[in-house]
């Protein structure tokens, strides 16, 4: 299914999904730079790890460069959050959805292949009895004809979809369709002083996005970015 289709169906089912910014942690090999789509262009890149709150159902385009052993190569993955987590209050950003960009997958994307990774929450009753480190994420490989979402749904509860490869921006710069409308994003930077809230300038002049629920605990720097509803609809329907 195209990016955004599954998340938009999740929104239609109702429940506590619309308006919730689900923290997501995108990480990669050491030295990698990750920049999210902000206001029609790519924002400040984050080194090694980028943590942000993402709306469920929206599609977020990222730019990944400075890849080790592949200097000069840029990859443009997308992240789609299709379900939320339920951590204790104040622990939202301590338990984000981990999305790991492995060197192998980045290399395959640079070669023109398309990689789909469905991240799911393991069922503790059927978890594999293997100790893991915090940043490790096991994965199962499925064939090209199989539906990875179906397989993930049988193993646990899918929460996010990562797609790498496929499209690259036009030579004259990324257009709005490529950026999926640059949906709102809540950036997280634990190194900043607490309680500092910055709202970046908007490119559409529309109303500011308001958080559906207050972020407590260790949320230390929050910036909200908005986009037009028309662009979001356009992006989701593609």
């Amino acid at each position, binding site marked *: 299914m195209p990016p955004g289709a599954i998340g938009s169906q999740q929104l239609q089912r109702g429940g506590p999904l619309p308006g919730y910014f689900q923290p997501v942690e995108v990480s990669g090999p050491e030295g990698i730079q990750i920049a999210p789509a902000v206001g029609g262009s790519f924002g400040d890149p984050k080194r090694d790890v980028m943590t942000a709150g993402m709306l469920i159902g929206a599609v977020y385009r990222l730019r990944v460069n400075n890849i080790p052993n592949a200097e000069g190569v840029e990859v443009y993955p997308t992240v789609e959050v299709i379900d939320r987590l339920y951590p204790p209050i104040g622990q939202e950003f301590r338990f984000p959805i981990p999305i790991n960009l492995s060197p192998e997958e980045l290399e395959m994307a640079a070669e023109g292949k398309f990689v789909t990774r469905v991240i799911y929450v393991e069922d503790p009753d059927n978890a594999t009895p293997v100790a893991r480190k915090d940043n490790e994420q096991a994965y199962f490989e499925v064939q090209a004809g199989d539906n990875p979402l179906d397989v993930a749904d049988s193993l646990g*509860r899918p929460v996010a979809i990562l797609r790498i490869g496929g499209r690259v921006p036009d030579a004259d710069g990324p257009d709005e369709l490529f950026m999926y409308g640059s949906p709102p994003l809540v950036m997280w930077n634990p190194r900043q002083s607490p309680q500092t809230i910055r709202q970046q300038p908007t490119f559409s002049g529309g109303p500011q996005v308001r958080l559906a629920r207050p972020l407590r605990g260790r949320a230390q720097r929050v910036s909200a970015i908005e986009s037009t509803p028309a662009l979001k609809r356009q992006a989701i329907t593609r």
Partner: protein
Amino acid sequence: MKLANIIRRGPVLAALLLASCQSLPKSELRLAPEASPAAAPPAKTAAKAKTSKPPKQIAAAPEAPTGDAVTVSDFQEPEEVSPRGEGLTKEQLALAVEKLPHMPVEPQCYQGHPIPNCPQTPWAPPGIAGPWPHDEYLQDGGDEYVQVNLGPNCEIRGLELQDTVAIYDTKDGRTKICASNKVCLYAPRFAAVRQVTNLIENLQQDQPIGLAKPVMPHQGLEDAVATTTIQPLRPQGSVVTRHPSIERRNETDAPAISLQPVLGIEGGFAIYENLLVMKRGVFEESEKSRLLEAIDAAIVWTHNAAVQVTLDGKQAVDVTGDQRAQATYRYDEPDSPCLRIVKIASKKTAKPGEIVEFTLRFDNVGDQLIKKVVIVDNLTTRLEYVPTTAQSSRRADFTTEANEGDSLVLRWDFADPLKPGEGGLVRFHCKVR
């Protein structure tokens, strides 16, 4: 007949203690074959080897007093000691603490059974409106699904992953089983399903099928009123503090107080164990919110200044609920053995690789001596016991066995009987997988 001897063990305590009691023959208790290492794959048999070693016991601490040796006359108050212990050295203070269990203690506010706060309401994460997915929480403790029972040879049956139970013999030869409360730990773990597609594999050419069907434009115009409106709902962010009890019991039965020596546990009590129920086995109302956080489950609180009711010359218990207009009075017969077991964890959240401490507090809240107390904790798949971290405040034989979840069954066999009012602590560390 004395009123104090009439008020006895209470209703089924779903959250904190154990209720199911069965009359079974007593003898050595062993795991049933289906839960024993013999049933596991051969590759794992090495890990199942029974490691019999005494718990990290309290080497520097004086041994906890055993039942028959304790008399009131054993206690000797230190000379010229201020009420707050000022002017004492650490050794003197330790000696005084050691002596504390021997003191005759006056009943304080409540020494009876803990009472479940809301017996029919399942646990849910605070601030989250249901339904909520259970896959992000690790649960340990209690006795779910198949109830633990003993086989003809006194082997333990029905011990599933996550179960934590205590088994003991009564003075009249019965064997009883009681489950602990359930501890919920937020520790989600993620995995992924990956699909790699080469773009060439998706190349296909569509050709017209050769059928031409002219279609006339349709002139019908229909204005339909929208019948469906999607109204986004904001998440419920309100935090509801649930009262931990809808049930109140008045009991003046004294023996539930148990002053256990702090020196029984290496390093004394941890910060998360700074609760009277952990230190002395006494529930205080002021601690209920902290205890709720510690066990993330229903908790008890009591009150000792309500109306007393007698039925047929025996003191009764007023059982009330918030959904009922009437009150029910009941009383229990004396000579009811009862063991209370409470389980708490040092953290509410943990990531893979982190260490979590678990503490089990058990007390004889009955009115008779109980013997052969055995505590069994069957760890869930994602909890890995950290070797050599088991401690016990009482003399116990600690053993481990592999279970079907590639984790361990922890078992403490207490040799000394528990007199009414006595109790103890066991503590161990687990690594979150």
